[in-house]
């Protein structure tokens, strides 16, 4: 009896969380005449394929829209932001965890708090800043601004990560005659690799998800990223190409979700540090 309740509850949560994705999947592969039947027609069941599935919408998405372009733009921004974030946040996290003494924790907290300042508070001044720099409507504007979101969180992640790495290895290297700088350059990188991987994945997911700054800075269709282009520019005129739209949403979400699943525990450690001991 208890097992039944457990499975029923689990099923309930899976249905609630997963139903929009099932809907994306069904819409992606349905023929138009199966798709566009008014919901008041109770004889036509929308949950299943009433006609054979089709690749029509997928072909439209990859062949006749700017979607492939947006994917490339997004990957370009991801790569640049990853480089900047790793170069800036990893040394900062190390510094706060190992070099800054008792001020490290406080300062790390301070930097982390800036992560809470949302894009929707900053997009107005940024729109002015970006046009002052002559970066409006360019991917460079995103590459410049996205690290404001990734650096605070990743610095905090690396700091937290290093607290779980024993100090003895670095200490031993110093006893062996390494200078402090040599330890940082030669010993520490190997220890931080898993932390860096988390930083890369976090940055990747954040850039993939970001919408507000992209909407504010980018106006021409060929400069858009996936998360901006799909909801804003895939819809041309009054005709909603729901099949292609849902295909784009599906093909973007699934790889992201797979990556997320592998790293969620690390991210959550970042969010709960302090409130959960362990």
């Amino acid at each position, binding site marked *: 009896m208890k097992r039944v309740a*457990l499975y029923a509850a*689990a099923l309930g*949560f899976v249905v609630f*969380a*997963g139903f*929009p*994705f099932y809907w*994306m999947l069904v819409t992606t592969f349905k023929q138009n005449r199966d798709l566009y039947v*008014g*919901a008041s027609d*109770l004889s036509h069941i*929308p949950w299943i394929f009433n006609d054979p599935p089709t690749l029509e919408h997928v072909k439209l998405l990859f062949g006749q829209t700017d979607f492939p372009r947006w994917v490339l733009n997004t990957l370009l921004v991801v790569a640049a932001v990853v480089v900047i974030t790793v170069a800036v946040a990893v040394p*900062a996290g190390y*510094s706060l965890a*190992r*070099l*800054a003494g008792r001020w490290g924790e406080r*300062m790390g907290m301070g930097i982390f708090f*800036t992560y809470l*300042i*949302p*894009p*929707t508070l*900053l*997009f*107005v*001044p940024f*729109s*002015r*800043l970006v046009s*002052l720099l002559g970066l409006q409507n360019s991917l460079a504007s995103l590459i410049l601004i996205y*690290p*404001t979101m990734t650096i*605070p969180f990743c610095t905090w992640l690396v700091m937290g990560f290093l607290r779980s790495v024993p100090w003895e290895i670095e200490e031993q290297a110093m006893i062996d005659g390494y*200078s*402090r*700088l040599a330890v940082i350059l030669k010993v520490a990188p190997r220890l931080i690799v898993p932390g860096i991987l988390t930083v890369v994945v976090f940055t990747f997911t954040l850039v*993939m*998800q*970001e*919408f*507000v700054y992209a*909407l504010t800075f980018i106006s021409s269709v060929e400069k858009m990223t*996936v998360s*901006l282009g*799909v*909801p804003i520019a895939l819809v041309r005129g009054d005709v909603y190409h729901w099949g292609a739209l*849902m295909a*784009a949403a599906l093909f*973007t*979400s699934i790889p*992201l*979700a797979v990556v*997320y*699943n592998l790293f969620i525990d690390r991210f959550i*450690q970042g969010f709960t540090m302090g*409130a*959960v*001991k*362990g």
Partner: protein
Amino acid sequence: MTPRRTLADREDVLGGVMLTPALAYVILLVGVPFVLAIVLSFSDATAGSLRFGWAGVRNYAAILADPIFLRALRNTAVVTIGSQLLVVVLATAAAQVFRATFRGKRFARFVLLLPWAVPVSLAAIAWTWIFDSTFSVINWTLKAAGLLHGWLYWLGEPALALLAIIIVQAWRIFPFATVIVLAGLSSIPQEIVEAAIVDGAGFWRRLFQVELPLLLPVVTVAVLFGVVYTATDLGVVYILTGGGPANTTHVLPTLAFQRGILGADLGQGAAIAVFLLPFLIVVAFAMLRLARRAEVGA
């Protein structure tokens, strides 16, 4: 042996050098714009020109007399509170389910995390399709189940549209909250739970009198992030309703975007966005208190 005090061994110098780029980024591109956001709200700056004139409290006077703004402020509070209430209930319940072992748990967990992993804008466009006025699968299902006789124009009526926004926000955030609560559950000392069982406490008693009080700090963290994510979110409302019908479902971020960016009135846009600050300040204070308590407890 005298310690070598070359530059390569000075921890303060090395620490400073390694921290400076991050500090510079945060100060120049978060701190300065943050101040600028507040300064702009007292100015008559527009997007078209680089002129920058002092406007005093004129922007604030204008928006406070504007029913659309007051409605947006109220909507922001309603959506945030409504969705976070749902999130707390859903997340504590889901955490109880997902701490147990059952067949297919890995798959279930994968699906559970989907709403949190998907980009907000893509989730919002999928929900726009789900709530479509003609093709809504929700309407079909309700009708097929005999629960609906008329028709629900989900995104066409203010109250329904607001409900739709709350549902989407709760859907998007509860997986994240669930995972945080699960992390909290696993840190509750097993002896306490076992002692409660030995003392004869049943499932509900254990849940409400033993586990939930211990979980409170973690649930608070989840809610605090949830508040920030919901109150400051632009994408869901922008894509789902665009603030419509007739400007009834705006929240602060969408109205700030409409006035500040689309309407090119940077001053007023900034003034509207500044009203997000109370939400953020409450959250920041609560988190600091939690962190301090954790420090004392440690």
